[in-house]
C-alpha cells in the first residue's frame, strides 16, 4: 500500500493519553502500514487536538475495526434509548 488516503472528521470530546486528559477536535482515519501493530495493514485512528497535535493513536486489524464500529453503533443505540 503506501497511500496518503486519510479520512478526516471533526469530533467533540476528550481523550486521555500519556499527558493526561485533553480535548480532541478531530479524528484522522486510514488503512495503511502501521507503525507498531504486527500487521501488514492496520486501521489507524489518530485523535487530534487541532490539525497537527496527535493526542492518542490506535492501530488495529480490519476485523477489529469492523467489530469496534458495530460495538459503537450498538452502544449508541442502547444508550440513547436508555437516556431518551
Amino acid at each position: 500500500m503506501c497511500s496518503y488516503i486519510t479520512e478526516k472528521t471533526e469530533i467533540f470530546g476528550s481523550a486521555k493519553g500519556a499527558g493526561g486528559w485533553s480535548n480532541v477536535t478531530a479524528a484522522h482515519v486510514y488503512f495503511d502500514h502501521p507503525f507498531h501493530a504486527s500487521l501488514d495493514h492496520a486501521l489507524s485512528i489518530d485523535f487530534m487536538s487541532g490539525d497537527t497535535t496527535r493526542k492518542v493513536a490506535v492501530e488495529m486489524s480490519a476485523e477489529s475495526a469492523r467489530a469496534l464500529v458495530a460495538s459503537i453503533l450498538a452502544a449508541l443505540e442502547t444508550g440513547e434509548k436508555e437516556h431518551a
Partner: protein
Amino acid sequence: MTYRGMIAEIVTITGNKGEKVEAYYARPSGPGPFPGVVLIHHMPGWDDWTMEAVRKLAHQGFACISHHLYHRLGPGTPDDLAAKARAAGGVSDDEVVGDVKGAMAFLRAQPGSNGKVGMIGFCSGGRHTFLASCRLEGVDAAVNCWGGNVVVDDPTQLTALRPVAPIDLTDGLKAPLLGLFGNEDKNPSPAQVDTLEAKLKACGKQYEFHRYDGAGHAFFAAERPAYRVEQANDGWQKVYAFYRKHLA
C-alpha cells in the same frame, strides 16, 4: 567481506534550500575507502527498521546514511511526525530531491569516501529513489524496493506535492537500476512493474528486475507478517552484489 566494527550516529546534513536535516549515519570502522549509500525510509517514518537497514549496509562495507524526511514537521517522535506528514498529504517531491542531494554531498565529503554513491529506498522510499535518480546527477547505482506510485494509473492521484508520475521522468535516469518486487503486491502491482520495465527498455536504460513469487509488499520487514525469509535473504544478496558491481 563484512565489517563487524562500525560507527553509527546522528548527524546533520544540509538539505533542500540549505535547511538542516537530521540523519542516521553508519559506516564501517577503519579508513576505507568505502562507497556511500543514501537510504530513503518508508512512509511509516524514520523508524527502528530504517536504522537496522542502515547498519546492515554498513556491515556489508557501505557508508550508509538515512535522513529524516519528516524532520521539518518536528519536534516529535518519528511516528508522530509520520502521522503529521500523512495528515499534510505527504512531503513534496522537490523537498525529497533536495534532501537526497544534500545526503549525497555529505557522503562524498567524508574522508573515507571512495567517491561513489548509491541510493536505496523502500515502499514510498522506492518511489523517491526512482524520482531522485531521474532528477539528480551523480547517482552511481539505484535500488528501488517495491516503490509504489512510480506508475500512476489514475491522474487524480497527482497532487501539488507530487505533480509528476516518476515514470514520466525515466529519460533522465543515468544510474543502473535494481528493482525488487513481490508478485503479490498491489502497489506496485505486477502489471505496473511490467509498465515500468517496458518504459526502461524503451528508453534504453540499464536495469535489473527481480520479481518474487510468494511475496507481497515490504517483504524485507522482519517484524511484520509480510516478511518472507527466503525472498528477503535473496533480495539483500542482490542488493549487495549490485552495489559491489557498480560502487566499487
